[in-house]
Every structure is written in structure tokens, then in C-alpha cells.
């Protein structure tokens, strides 16, 4: 992979120049949290943001969007023809791992038109990160990324090492080649190696997830799950903020008067009671605890069966967002019988 250097003072100028390609998005502070937003004022860009509340999936499958328009006489048309190109800056490795998982889920068996259409228009500029006490990407080996981005920025104090990850990334870079330094010296190399060693040791939260599929299987009928089930608010927050949760529902909205109707697709959560309810009234997961179990089975076991790796990427969003402290770290510890600090 080809790499360049970009002096930090050029960053904002460079990002702004990328508006020639499309909208430039990045993490911006909103109260205590960060949100991926379209950048108009580059001074607002939060380079230290760790986990924008909604992950990258919001670009690829928005929380709600129209799939079809239809008229009363039975004619219908695809509601999503084109998506404006967005260049998303500041995406961390764990999120890119989630993206790679979504790519497999949405591109392989029965490619999803809506995902593909959004995906094609979403260009990614990765940015290295320093973990906080909620990050556990190293435990899942998602703390580093070699593919899935167009440009990859590694923060080496006064400059960024910029990796070119795709042909589109090459276009982005060449757009302002004048700002980049092509010469990588052995000093740069050493600095990079040192940085990696240092950064990989910054993880405060380390989970041993090696035997999770078996543990999920063996713990299935244990009483401890009931306590977790009683605690869960069934609010669905975990599904909304998890970078690999992409369940959805569909609803038809009729048009009023001469307006066309629309078919809308929107995020759903398996934590909601209605999720597995079938016509006729039978609910396959009536009990809260069964829904919590499904969620964690799907994160920590099912994806391993399907894709050879867990769906969890260690981003820490569930730790940061569940109002009653149910999250991957907590569940892992409980299931493994480890003491959980309240």
C-alpha cells in the first residue's frame, strides 16, 4: 500500500478541498457525544472523537428512507436512484471492520440494492485512534485495519502518515498532491513502528472472547440470563448504536389526495417485543430474556458461524450507551463468572 505524509497544519485545507468530490462529513461534538455531520466549519471537526453515537451504518442504510413510490393506479417506482457522494473523515479501524462485515452481509448473498447504492457513494477516510476505557477492539483484533478505506490517516504527532487504500483514495490524494510529501524516511518508519507498539498497549479494557461461541451455547439455560433479562429496558438503544446491527422493518405510507404513496424502510431491533411476532399472534420471543439472549448470540456466536468472526468490533458503543449497563463487556464477564464492578 502506498503511503504519503501530510503535515497536520494542512489537514483542514486538504479536507475542504475534497468538497470538489462531494460532501465532507466527520465527527463533530454535540454535548457530551460526537455525531458524524456534514462539515461546514472545519474548526468544529473533533479529531479526538472516539465513537460518534450513530456509526458508519447511518450512511449505508439510513435510519429511515423510502424504497418505493407508488400511485393509486398500481404504478410504482424505485425511490432511491442516486445518493450524493459523501467523504467521511475520521473513521476508526473498529468501524471499518464493522463496514467489512456489513459488506459481506449486504453484498454477497442477495445483494441489497439500497446498501450498494449508498455504499458506492460513501468514501472513507480512516483515522487512527487512541482507545479510552470503553474500547476493546484489540480483544477482537479489530484495532487495526488493512482494507476497507479509501485513505487511511495515522496520527504521528506533527504529521499524518496517509495510506492509499483504493483507486478512489488515490484520486482524493492526487487532488492536492501539492500538500503531501511522498518521501518516507527510515525515521518515519521507526516512528510508525514505535507508535503502533505504544498505541496497541493503550487498551485498558481487555476481554478474552476466544471461547465465546461455546460459552454462549453452554450458558443458554443458566439463571444469570434471567437477571439480565429483568434489567433490560427493551428500549432498543443497543441495536440502534451497534455498528453491525442492521435489522429493519418496512411500512407503507399511503399518499393523501394526489400525493404518491411510499414504502419506507427503517431500523428495527430484535430487542423489541413485536420483532418476532407472526400473523395470527404467535410470538417466538415473547420473553425479554430470550430477546437479550438472541442479541448476544448473534453478536458473539452467530456471526462466527456465518463469517468466521464475531459481529462485535469492540467499539464500546454499548458500554457508552446502554442506560442499564448491559453490554458486551458486562455480558462476557458475567458469563465467564468474573466479578462485575457495579
Amino acid at each position: 500500500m502506498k503511503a504519503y505524509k501530510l503535515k497536520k497544519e494542512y489537514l483542514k485545507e486538504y479536507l475542504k478541498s475534497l468538497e470538489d468530490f462531494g460532501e465532507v462529513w466527520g465527527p463533530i461534538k454535540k454535548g457530551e457525544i460526537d455525531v458524524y455531520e456534514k462539515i461546514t466549519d472545519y474548526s468544529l471537526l473533533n479529531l479526538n472523537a472516539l465513537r460518534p453515537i450513530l456509526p458508519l451504518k447511518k450512511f449505508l442504510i439510513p435510519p429511515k428512507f423510502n424504497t418505493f413510490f407508488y400511485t393509486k393506479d398500481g404504478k410504482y417506482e424505485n425511490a432511491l436512484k442516486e445518493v450524493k457522494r459523501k467523504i467521511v473523515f475520521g473513521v476508526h479501524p473498529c468501524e471499518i471492520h464493522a463496514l467489512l462485515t456489513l459488506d459481506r452481509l449486504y453484498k454477497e448473498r442477495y445483494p441489497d440494492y439500497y446498501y450498494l447504492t449508498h455504499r458506492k457513494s460513501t468514501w472513507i477516510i480512516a483515522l487512527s485512534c487512541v482507545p479510552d476505557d470503553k474500547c476493546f477492539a484489540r480483544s477482537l483484533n479489530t484495532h487495526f485495519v488493512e482494507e476497507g478505506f479509501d485513505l487511511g490517516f495515522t496520527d504521528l504527532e506533527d504529521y499524518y502518515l496517509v495510506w492509499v487504500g483504493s483507486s478512489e483514495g488515490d484520486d482524493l490524494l492526487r487532488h492536492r498532491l501539492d500538500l503531501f510529501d511522498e518521501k518516507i524516511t527510515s525515521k518515519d518508519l521507526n516512528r510508525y513502528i514505535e507508535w503502533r507498539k505504544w498505541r496497541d498497549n493503550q487498551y485498558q479494557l481487555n476481554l478474552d472472547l476466544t471461547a465465546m461461541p461455546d460459552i454462549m451455547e453452554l450458558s443458554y439455560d443458566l439463571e444469570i440470563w434471567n437477571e439480565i433479562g429483568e434489567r433490560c429496558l427493551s428500549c432498543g438503544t443497543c441495536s440502534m448504536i451497534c455498528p453491525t446491527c442492521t435489522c429493519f422493518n418496512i411500512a407503507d405510507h399511503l399518499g393523501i389526495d394526489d400525493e404518491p404513496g411510499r414504502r419506507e424502510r427503517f431500523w428495527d431491533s430484535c430487542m423489541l417485543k413485536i420483532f418476532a411476532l407472526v400473523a395470527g399472534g404467535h410470538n417466538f420471543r415473547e420473553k425479554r430474556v430470550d430477546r437479550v439472549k438472541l442479541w448476544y448470540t448473534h453478536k458473539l456466536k452467530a456471526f462466527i458461524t456465518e463469517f468466521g468472526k464475531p459481529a462485535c468490533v469492540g467499539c464500546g458503543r454499548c458500554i457508552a450507551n446502554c442506560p442499564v449497563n448491559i453490554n458486551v463487556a458486562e455480558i462476557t464477564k458475567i458469563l465467564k463468572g468474573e466479578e462485575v464492578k457495579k
Partner: protein
Amino acid sequence: MDKEKKLKIGFYEFSGCAGDLLTIIHNEDYLLKVWNSAEIISFRLATSKRDEKANLDIAFVEGSITAEEQIEELRKIREKSRILIALGTCASFGGLQSMYSHLGDFSSRFNSIYPHKFTILKPIESKPLESYVKVDYFIPGCPIDFKLFLFNFTRLLRNLPVELPSYPVCIECKWQENNCLLLKKIPCLGPLTRAGCQARCPTHNLPCVGCFGPYEDLNLPSWLKTLQENNIPFKELEKKIRMFFGVKVKEILSKLKNKK
């Protein structure tokens, strides 16, 4: 749609702020479309033209029943309507005016607030429509959300049943990319409350007050526990639930007692 085939619809109001009907009127972009797509038989806030004798396909009724005279009036509307819909939280659950219905008997409460005799109407405890007549569907909200109203209005015109979001406010709150107020131990009723409002209050950094009424799968014990652990007394939390959940409060709290 054929002019002849337009459904006959009436809008009515009892005790409340008229906020639900005003929500319909204030969406000027849609007002004509609403008028075009149905035969509006009665809508006192919008037109003086009305026909009180005609039978209705659908009656939208706002407000709770707070006077004896209203019971008869409501029954008349029910009799002439194929479908009756409780519009807004007052009509659905009793509204704010039901907030203290658990505190002793009505007349002593009433007299303590209004020591001077009323003569216009005979006041009674505030109750939702369902306490007196069969209600086919509920469209809650204080006030209703126009988009949710429109979604269901068009469904009703097509003879489809009303459909409400089957998820709590938290889902919409996350779509709005808000930080959870419960994390800051602010008693937000989001996880207890049915969505439909686009998480309006949390989006303005204010806790949800539950104005859309209870979410069918709410987990009250866990919600209480997480806040009580942070020294918010039960009394205060209970008061928050009472504010909008109206007659549903009894049912919700009784489950809590059974659990204990």
C-alpha cells in the same frame, strides 16, 4: 377517488386544550388535502358548516370526559359513527386532568380547588373515552404528531386499521443522535413511552414526559431501579408517570406491586 365514495368524517372535542385538532389545522400544507380526501361533516374549530344529523364513517374525538353532560354527547357521536377514534392523550388515557385521580374522592378534591359552586356543567372525574363508549383506535400524543396522524388518516381512508409505532421513544431518540438522558440519571420516560413524537423533548435535551402514553412492553421495575439507585425517590418518579399515563397508571403500578 370518487366524490360519492368519500368517507364522512367528523372531528369533535371534549375536555382538553384542543391541541390535537389544532395540530391538524396548523399543518396548512395538508389542510386542503385532508379536506379534499374526505367529506368533513363536523370540525368546529375549522368550519361553522356542519351536519350534526349525518351518520359518520369516522369520528375523531379529542379530550377527556369531565362532565356528566359530555357522556351523553359522546354516546351520540358513538351511535352515529362506524369507527370512533380517541385522538390525543386526553381522549386515550384521561390526560393531565386524570393525574391526581388516585388521591381520594373526586368531590373533595374538586371542592378544595374550586370552593365556589359551578353551575354550567356537572363536573366528574376525568376519564378517557373508553370508559364510556367503545373506542376502535387510539392515536395518542400531547399533542398528536401530525405525521403519525396523517399516516393513520390515510390508512383509515383506505379502510386499513390504525397502526402505531410498536417501539419506545428511545428508538426515535437514537435516530436523532441524542445522548441518553438516563445515562445522566435524569428521569427520562423514553423507554416507558410509545414513540411517535420523533423524540421531540430529548432532542431538545429535555427528558421525555411520557405524553404519548405507555409503551406496551415497558420495563418499569428496571427503569425505577436504575434511577432510585441514584437517589431519586420513588414518589418523584411515580409522579412523572402519573402525569400523562392517566388511567393506565393503575394497571402499570399494580404489576409493580405484584412483582414485589
